[in-house]
């Protein structure tokens, strides 16, 4: 992993056309500004995890699992 130290208002450039600027730094939070072409998708990592979790959870239940669930007593 490349590690770069930056100060507020300094930035890095990725692949000539993506700029990430450090806007604000506080105790455990960093505010980033990102300038990139419109077709570059930018999402928070947790969002990807949330999407993956939903996709996994949407899978059809096996007949055994469905029966077990329906027989669950609270």
């Amino acid at each position: 992993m490349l590690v770069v130290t930056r100060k507020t208002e300094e930035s890095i450039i990725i692949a000539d056309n993506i700029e990430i600027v450090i806007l604000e730094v506080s105790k455990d939070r960093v505010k980033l500004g990102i300038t990139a072409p419109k077709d570059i998708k930018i999402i928070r990592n947790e969002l990807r995890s949330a999407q993956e979790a939903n996709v996994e959870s949407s899978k059809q239940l096996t007949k055994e699992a469905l029966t077990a669930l329906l027989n669950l007593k609270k």
Partner: protein
Amino acid sequence: MMMINTRDFGEMEVETKNVFDFPNGVFAFEDDKRFALLSPLGEGTYPMWLQSLDHSDLCFIVFDPTLIDEGYTVTLNDSEKRLLKVNEGDEIRSLTIAKIPENFRETTVNMKSPIIINPANNTALQVILPHDYPFRYPIYAAEEVK
């Protein structure tokens, strides 16, 4: 009452009070804007089935996270509150989506991104909580040890 097609139970009737609007859909299924909450184990008993009304093959098994973790805390940001039209102190309801593998004892629930419902207007939203909750929390792990 309305008739809907479900993934696990065929055609069935649901009361409109159990139909919820998801203006943003849910993560990875943004086009599914309406879901019905089914209680095949009896009214008020979890798990419940969150069935999409837009695609009958999309359905999630959901639990009440506050029954799994008594101290479960939901913090909404301003845009989430605006979307749900909730104010500080309003009652909200949370649902956690389960992942049910072949061995159903290995079921996990997603405590990090629950579905939040405003019961006053039947609007619902899936959020990502700022708290340090897991995406896959095993609910039967404690029993497994026995």
